[in-house]
């Protein structure tokens, strides 16, 4: 396979000037095609092994797949997570339990575990951020989830959540993610939405799934991230 | 963009004309000039496969104490910030190395026969060697400062000529001046040249930027040279197709250079021009 100067410079992580200089100094195996320099992958592999230099000649798609996938917007996460209504319960633990029961994307076997984690998190610091909203989430990543979800649960009755503004809470936004970075991103996107007073009022109306997703999409567009 | 031109300053009235030309050139195409005031009568340029020594004649070392001041005055006259080049490395104590990291180099006009060396600086035959090895175009100025108002490209179809054409287009774009192409029909007809341009993907820019393409029969060479406007910048490639012919009969470049008084911008074989 042939490589151009540009390709090789990307492979080795050096500037094109450097490759040209090494060719001029006779340090790289090269052959000329017209007036351009070209490199043969076989020759280069031999050269690299002689010089203890690591070279990857596999295709571009062979980049190490990190855990993070591309950023998923909040609206999509909500679509994944679903919107649920009439959650029963009169205290933190019971509404959490009831919500988890309803959220379909959580595998049955993990529900108890998740509940425990959420309760633990609430004990450390309440996730009631004010204005009747709470954002329960576990501290750890949930590797059994395929993709991040944000589940919106409207409570039947407001509950005392020991929130920051001491108001009772009627909407829960569950943020459940397989990776920490995703979690932070969704948290940030959500907090951006929740700064908008119109959105808070909108939530009080207990909108349905489609309307809520649409509203979130609109707000998202104004977020530069 | 950040194009740099190196000018070797001669502190004489003749050098003044040359320098004004360089300054005008830079101003027009948005490059910036750097002046080198020689302290010794020779310098060395290391290219990738050759070391070229340029011997300057003594007029380059005239009145060294006033040289910098004169150069600064000329810079200011053209409203360009004065920038000077100081060689950092020396091959021998009187032989400085001049860097080849420039985008343009300005040489005064050279006449190839030695008898007319008067006050022109003996860069003479060295210009050819520099052109042969340099990766940048060489600007050879007219004897007297004359602002050029259009660009004329001599297109002979060779690789060098293609580079010259690309350079001409580039200059037309940054200066806003009109571009004219002149071709001497040697063995092929017009369509051959037009196809060549199309193959290189230059058909569009040529159509946009240049006024009609002028073709001439081989016998009308001198007529072609006269038709080029006196205040036009001529852009051409260094070697044409036949190298043997060049050596025996004197290349077209030399012929052109000794007949017309326009400023010449010459691209050598190692130049690569990107649009």
């Amino acid at each position, binding site marked *: 396979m042939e490589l151009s100067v540009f390709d090789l410079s990307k492979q080795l992580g*050096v500037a094109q000037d450097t490759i040209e200089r090494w060719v*001029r100094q006779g340090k790289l*195996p090269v052959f000329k095609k017209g007036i351009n320099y070209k490199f043969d992958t076989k020759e280069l592999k031999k050269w690299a092994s*002689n*010089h203890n230099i690591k070279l990857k000649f596999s295709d571009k798609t062979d980049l190490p797949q990190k855990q993070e996938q591309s950023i998923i917007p909040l609206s999509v996460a909500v679509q994944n997570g679903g919107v649920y209504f009439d959650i029963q319960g009169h205290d933190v633990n019971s509404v959490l339990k009831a919500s988890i029961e309803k959220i379909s994307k959580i595998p049955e076997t993990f529900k108890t575990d998740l509940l425990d984690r959420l309760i633990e998190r609430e004990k450390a610091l309440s996730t009631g951020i004010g204005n009747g909203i709470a954002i329960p989430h576990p501290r750890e990543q949930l590797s059994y989830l395929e993709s991040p979800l944000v589940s919106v649960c409207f409570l039947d009755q407001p509950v005392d959540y020991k929130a920051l503004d001491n108001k009772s809470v009627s909407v829960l936004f569950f943020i459940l993610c397989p990776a920490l970075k995703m979690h932070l991103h969704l948290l940030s996107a959500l907090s951006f939405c929740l700064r908008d007073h119109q959105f808070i009022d909108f939530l009080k109306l207990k909108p349905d799934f489609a309307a809520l997703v649409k509203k979130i999409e609109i707000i998202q567009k104004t977020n530069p991230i | 963009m*950040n194009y740099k031109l190196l000018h070797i300053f001669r502190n004489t009235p003749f050098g003044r004309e040359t320098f004004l030309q360089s300054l005008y050139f830079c101003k027009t195409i948005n490059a*910036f000039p750097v002046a080198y005031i020689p302290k010794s009568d020779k310098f060395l340029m290391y290219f990738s496969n050759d070391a*070229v020594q340029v011997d300057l004649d003594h007029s380059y070392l005239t009145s060294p104490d006033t040289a910098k001041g004169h150069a600064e005055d000329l810079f200011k006259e053209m409203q360009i910030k004065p920038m000077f080049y100081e060689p950092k490395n020396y091959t*021998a*104590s009187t032989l400085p190395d001049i860097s080849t990291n420039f985008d343009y180099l300005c040489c005064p006009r050279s006449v190839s026969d030695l008898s007319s060396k008067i006050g022109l600086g003996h860069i003479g035959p060295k210009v050819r060697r520099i052109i042969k090895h340099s990766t940048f175009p060489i600007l050879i100025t007219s004897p007297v400062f004359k602002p050029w108002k259009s660009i004329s490209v001599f297109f002979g179809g060779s690789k060098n000529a293609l580079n010259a054409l690309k350079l001409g287009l580039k200059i037309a774009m940054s200066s806003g001046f009109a571009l004219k192409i002149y071709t001497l029909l040697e063995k092929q007809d017009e369509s051959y040249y037009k196809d060549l341009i199309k193959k290189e993907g230059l058909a569009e820019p040529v159509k946009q930027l240049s006024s009609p393409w002028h073709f001439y029969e081989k016998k009308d060479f001198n007529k072609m040279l006269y038709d080029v406007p006196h205040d036009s910048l001529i852009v051409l490639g260094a070697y044409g197709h036949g190298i043997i012919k060049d050596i025996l009969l004197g290349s077209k470049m030399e012929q052109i250079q000794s007949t017309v008084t326009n400023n010449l911008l010459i691209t050598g074989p190692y130049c690569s021009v990107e649009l």
Partner: protein
Amino acid sequence: MSKIKNFFKNLFRRLFQLDDRLLLIIAGSIAGICSGLAAVALRLSLESVLELLHPFRQYGWAFILPAVGALLSSFYLEKIAREGAGHGVPEVIYSVSRHGGLLRFRSSYSRLISSFLTIGSGGSAGPEAPVVMSGSAIGSNIAKFLGLNDRQRITLVGCGTAGAIASIFNAPIAGMVFAIEVILGEWKFVNIIPIAIAAVAGAQVSHAIIPDQVIFNHLPFQVGGADILPSLGLAVVTAMVSVLFTKVLRQTGKIAKKSSLPFWARAIIGGSTVGIIGMFMPVVLAEGYHSIQSMISGTFSMGLFFVFFAVFAKIFATAMTLGWGGSGGIFAPCLVIGSLTGVVFHKMLMVLVPSFGCASEGAYALLGMTGLVSGVMQAPLTGIFLIVEITGGYETILPLIVVSSISSTMSHYIEPASFYFKELIERGQFLRPGTDARILSDLNIRELIETEFVKVSENMVFRKFIELLKTSDQNFFPVIEDGTQEYKGVIQISAIRKFALDPGMYDMVFLNQIMDTNVMTASLENDLQEVLDMMDINHMDSMPVVENNRFVGMISKTRILDLYRRELIMQTSDH
């Protein structure tokens, strides 16, 4: 027609592309032969001129001869060949370190002519440095003709050098060792074979044309155990003499430079001085090979005191010749001074301990030569091998090693840089492969710049900047002026942390109020050493590069480290 040309081009390419060893050997032997011929030409012409001028030496006006020679030589160099001033060998080393051995074509012959004029008229200099320069230039231009890359060109320069020295002294190993020890500075396997072959080629050329080597005939010597102790003494003495020689050379050169006399006046003064000394002590004139020969064979007929003064006279004469306008090398004068020192030492030994069973005077002359070569040029191996090849045997090897190593060590201690390298080191241009200085000089600032930077306008509101910050991973933001795109300053995230976290500032501040305009910037013309010094002085890890008031990119120390390591691996690997 072009099809045939292409065929040959392809053949050539296939044959030599993948393994250029064959090509280098062939080209190297050609270089060795050519430089050998150049060396022979110079030697023969020197011989004939010396013979020609010999009858005139008895006249009173004969002292003018070296002056005339020096005058013609410097005139030729200055006006006709337009060479730079200088010794020549440092120029070759400089080119090998910085520019892959590119040498001008005129260097192949210009120094031959100039040194012919200088030495032929009696100037005290050696023909070796000019021949080395010619040989190197021949090798370099052969490489240029074949379109070779730097590494191959450097090998050919070494071949030219080796051929030259091998030819002059009829000593191929000395030629090879000199080329590698002094010029190239590294023992790489790829280099050794072509250089060795070139050395042999050069020596053979010399042997073929000058079959009975009158000079440097191989003579056997009887050296015994009794000589070890005196060798130590001789080593110390030669070390002192070496240091003295080097210092005198340098001083006279400085004085000549400082004086405002035009070059031809200096040449005349220098030459006349040498001429006058030469009238009384002919041994100081010219390159002195004949004198060396007679000292070696023990037929040298000067008394002790005369020889003692001759040492200093020769030092002075060489300094006057080379420092004041003449052209030539110091190798031969080193040999002469060395043998004179050896002879003096032996004579004194004989006076002090008349019945000492040590070797002959000739043997001590040889040891003295080694001592000087090792001391002045700090090339101990060259010194040893040269003498071994001259004597044709290894009997002298033990005292040779003693003298050579002690002399070079001692003079290194006093004068850390050898004569050839000193001026390069002073200019910071002594760049042996794999050294820090070399890497820093090879890496160009353009290769290290990162140019992918989002620039911000100086009139941007801080709030907008904060928004930008959310999506960017830059730590530095260059600030530019709106219309002209000129560089104005830099915003360093670490410096504005406290403002970035204070929302009250967001709408109150424009970027040109919080940007840092005092940040030191580099330009594309700076070399890496300068940039690193600037960073160290200002405790910076990153530095903006600005050219003609426009922001070009940033240089960071982490990137420098990556590329530095890469470069080091490339330079020291065994390719």
